């Protein structure tokens, strides 16, 4: 008998209010300690799926289980949010405190840590990400890459067991992108990463899924790579004929 997975999605379906066709249609997924990559065209519901997992959107049908327990109310999701960290697509939405230290300490303080402990944890997290002496920097004055890393720090300071990252490598310069890959490898936390950057996924994930027509489809191993195309749809995940 296998042990209960950390997170399990059972038959999740969702359609936008007012839409007749469903965006997500019977999604099943189990995650325990995996590194999952999620690809799919724009608007296919990838971000929505992560928001559903975090309890920000109510599903039409289906169940979300954390450690084998079905989550139903807002209260249950509060518990889930302690264990799962969600990195937004846009870091500006995630950083709202004046200084970096205040932002990174926001989560720990909300979880009832004392000021000093929250500070200590935040400084340690920043150091871990190579952001030493960033504590007093003003969040909105950071560069795009710095914002992304600080946003990651605000999540890591809550010591999650699973990370959900929404297009983390977008708009990052090559050096910061490499650093993010390195960080994710060192952390070795379970994660789900949404991205269109196939190389990024190849170096951070062991399993790849794609969302098509509201279904989650496992991609075959060893087929994902980026290569040059002269036809216009080369950017989309695709399979080649034998």
């Amino acid at each position: 008998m296998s042990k209960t997975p950390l997170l399990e999605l059972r038959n999740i379906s969702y359609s936008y209010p007012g839409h007749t066709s469903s965006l997500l249609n019977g999604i099943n997924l189990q995650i325990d300690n995996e590194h999952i990559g999620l690809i799919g065209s724009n608007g296919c519901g990838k971000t929505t799926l992560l928001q559903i997992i975090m309890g920000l959107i109510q599903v039409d049908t289906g169940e979300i289980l954390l450690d084998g327990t079905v989550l139903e109310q807002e209260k249950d999701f509060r518990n889930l949010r302690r264990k799962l960290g969600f990195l937004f697509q846009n870091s500006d939405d995630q950083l709202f405190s004046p200084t970096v230290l205040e932002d990174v300490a926001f989560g720990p303080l909300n979880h009832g840590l004392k000021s000093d402990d929250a500070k200590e944890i935040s400084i340690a997290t920043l150091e871990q990400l190579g952001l030493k002496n960033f504590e007093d920097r003003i969040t909105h004055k950071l560069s795009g890459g710095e914002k992304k890393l600080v946003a990651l720090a605000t999540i890591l300071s809550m010591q999650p067991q699973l990370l959900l990252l929404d297009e983390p490598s977008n708009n990052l310069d090559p050096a910061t992108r490499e650093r993010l890959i390195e960080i994710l490898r060192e952390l070795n936390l379970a994660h789900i990463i949404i991205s269109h950057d196939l190389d990024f996924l190849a170096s951070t994930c062991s399993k790849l899924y794609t969302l098509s027509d509201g279904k989650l489809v496992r991609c075959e191993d060893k087929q994902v790579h980026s290569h040059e195309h002269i036809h216009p749809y080369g950017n989309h995940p695709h399979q080649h004929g034998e």
Partner: protein
Amino acid sequence: MIEEPFASGSSFLHRRDPRIKLIGAACISLVLALSTSFLTAVTGCILTGFLLILSQPNPKRIVQRILGVNVFTLFLLITLPFTYGSNEATSWFHFSQDGLRMATLIALKSNAILFCFLALLATSSTVSLGHSLEKLGMPRKLTFLLLFSYRQLFIIHQEYKRLQRAALLRGFIPKNSLHTYRTYSHLFAMTLVKSWNRAERVQQAMLLRGFNGRLIPLNQPQPTQADYSLLILLLLLSLILAGLSFFPLPL
């Protein structure tokens, strides 16, 4: 972020607990605002002037601030003597000493209160003042509103600027025309929609990090001996000012 030019510094007043400064500023400004005595107003100006010097502000910026407020008092000085009270001079020219006295009193009082606020409140950041107000018993919801309006105003302004730039780059030149008004109404409406969406995403971000309606400050200093001494000094100061109101100056 809205600029707080006087909040950073290391003077004696900068290092004091914001709660103490809030209480002190409230007492002094209340006495000054209610007083009708010249003696109180003049002494108030001098004493709060000393406080201001104690806070070691940037001289150029502080003069700018003071001048800014005095544009209004100057306006009163120009208009009040000619419109207020009874006419004491000739019949064709209205000039009243009462009006002049009133305008001078208002000018002195507003400057004294301004000095007091610049010395005591401007030397703390808005964020720490907000938290201190909560600790002094202001309802949590109001504190939250204050702190968040303060933070988000800047973002809304930025959002608007971005849209405005986009319009300019596409050759938009504001004129007195229907097209201009329509464009501005679109800009305002779009700013509103975008700020709303953004506020929603920020709220989600806060929710995901365990926010439950209360902003917990990272630094929670305890008042020190020096803080209590300042409190006593400020309370004494307001008592003296209040006492002086009972001695009418022979003017």
